[in-house]
């Protein structure tokens, strides 16, 4: 890459390499900064340090094996990515998912949204020097991960759910853990908010830091909490509801300045909204099956595989990736932790997708980062990055 020009206005600026591995950037991001003292004059971002060719990989994998790729996009909220992929395939094959499975998905997605926002908000606090809140609130993230562990056996890269529904019903133990989380979380979040929200140091460090106007944010393709912090009330869950989100009542919090404090506050309020969605989903949880009747995509019961001919055939076909998929092109978007996570899938009827394109919100809004930090202090640039919640996995695919 080319070093930025550092001799404009007849001044000699210094060049500073921020990253690729820098403890303050929480991931592998490189920014070559042109500095005037502590002021940033220009910045050039380099991305791609953990590029893993997901789009190419996806062209070589059967549909049910792509879920594990999506885990590794935004690894702070893998379940949302998994569900987004399942729903894309379900849209392609025209599957109807039972209400119960949809509500279970909503619970999981909102739990992982909370986990995602906990990471982002506490890390903003850490970057301003408030370590305590981070340690306190991570306890609840741990509880969420224990719920995931109970439901699917994994914690970080969950591979949760299947095409056609969920792999199994929530066990009594899982319900117990969800209940435990729901009882404890409000207290913990309130405690964190009372530590940080109106903290003088925190406010001084975040208000008017890294602001972006609504118009600019839209031009740069912002979605999710970062766009809402700038004052645009766009949320995929409301604009194009999926997985029964139209059944739930929740507000979309918006900010005004699009600065770090607004991004923090929007995420904070979204956690409360997610909490209320989970409450509603638990209260109104319908009875019924936890997966659709899709023998061609949904693995049969192991018992049946040993005793029934048909189940054995389908089991074999699914495992070997020989399922027939209709031709067509489909786009499905979910509201991920960072914004609109879209899957554009072209199927030519073969065993693997012909083309799969991920609309990765991080990748799209990270290009505004140099623009946002120009003219600010170096330490504010760090805060701006953590408040945008740039996740390297999603950025680099």
């Amino acid at each position: 890459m080319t070093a930025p020009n550092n001799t404009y206005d007849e001044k000699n600026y210094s060049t500073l390499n921020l990253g690729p591995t820098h403890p303050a950037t929480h991931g592998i991001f490189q920014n070559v900064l042109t500095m005037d003292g502590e002021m940033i004059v220009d910045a050039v971002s380099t991305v791609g340090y953990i590029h893993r060719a997901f789009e190419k990989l996806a062209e070589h994998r059967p549909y049910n094996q792509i879920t594990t790729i999506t885990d590794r996009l935004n690894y702070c909220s893998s379940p949302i990515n998994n569900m987004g992929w399942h729903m894309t395939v379900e849209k392609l094959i025209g599957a109807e998912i039972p209400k119960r499975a949809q509500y279970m998905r909503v619970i999981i997605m909102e739990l992982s949204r909370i986990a995602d926002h906990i990471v982002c908000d506490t890390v903003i606090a850490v970057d301003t020097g408030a370590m305590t809140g981070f340690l306190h609130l991570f306890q609840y993230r741990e509880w969420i991960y224990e719920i995931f562990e109970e439901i699917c056996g994994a914690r970080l890269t969950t591979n949760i759910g299947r095409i056609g529904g969920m792999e199994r019903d929530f066990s009594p133990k899982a319900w117990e853990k969800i209940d435990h989380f729901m009882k404890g979380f409000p207290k913990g979040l309130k405690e964190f908010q009372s530590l940080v929200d109106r903290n003088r140091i925190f406010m001084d460090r975040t208000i008017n830091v890294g602001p972006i106007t609504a118009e600019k944010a839209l031009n740069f393709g912002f979605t999710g909490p970062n766009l809402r912090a700038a004052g645009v009330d766009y949320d995929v869950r409301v604009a194009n509801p999926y997985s029964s989100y139209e059944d739930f009542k929740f507000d979309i919090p918006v900010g005004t300045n699009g600065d770090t404090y607004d991004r923090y506050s929007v995420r904070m309020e979204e956690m409360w909204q997610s909490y209320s969605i989970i409450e509603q989903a638990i209260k109104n949880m319908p009875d019924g099956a936890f997966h659709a009747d899709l023998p061609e995509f949904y693995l049969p019961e192991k018992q049946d595989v040993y005793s029934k001919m048909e189940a054995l055939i389908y089991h074999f076909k699914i495992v070997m990736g020989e399922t027939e998929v209709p031709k067509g092109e489909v786009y499905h978007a979910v509201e991920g932790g960072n914004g609109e996570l879209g899957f554009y899938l072209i199927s030519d009827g073969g065993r693997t997708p012909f083309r799969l394109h991920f609309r990765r919100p991080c990748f799209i809004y990270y290009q505004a980062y140099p623009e946002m930090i120009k003219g600010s202090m170096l330490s504010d640039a760090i805060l701006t990055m953590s408040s945008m919640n740039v996740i390297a996995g999603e950025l680099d695919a």
Partner: protein
Amino acid sequence: MSELLQKVKDKLESKFGDALLSAEMHYDFPVFILRKDSVKDVLIFLKEDTDLNFHFLTTMCGIHQPDETEDKQFGLMYQLHNMPKNFRIRLKTFMSKSDLDMPTISDIYPTAGWMERQEYDFFGFNFIGHKNLSRILNMDEMNYFPMRKEYPLEDLGRSDKSDKMFGR
């Protein structure tokens, strides 16, 4: 959503005539296939039209289809969004391998800057007028475009991965 298809189709037909090759629904998306030279004008028109006002570029991506006819080897897909009215459409255009030049749209939608770099990186589209059309996710020294179908999943140039034992 099919009202939207009809509305956009009427507008494009009256304004651009035969540049619109086809208009149909694919699942919940109206999809318009355009002649290559008209894409940028159509995008400007769709953004500036007061009724449609597609102010947001959701995503764009390249497509390589080597089994198609010569003039349809490569394709580009643009997805536009009007948030207040919740209009979403997809535009597609196809071109031959020898002619991968496209006018950049990063001056209309700044967000296309990195998207175009990504599609250049993986498919080799040449976006004319782009300020910094360089590789973004792959290394700068790479001399091929890896998302084209002729390139296998694994790098054939690797000598450290002979795998004699497992017969790859």
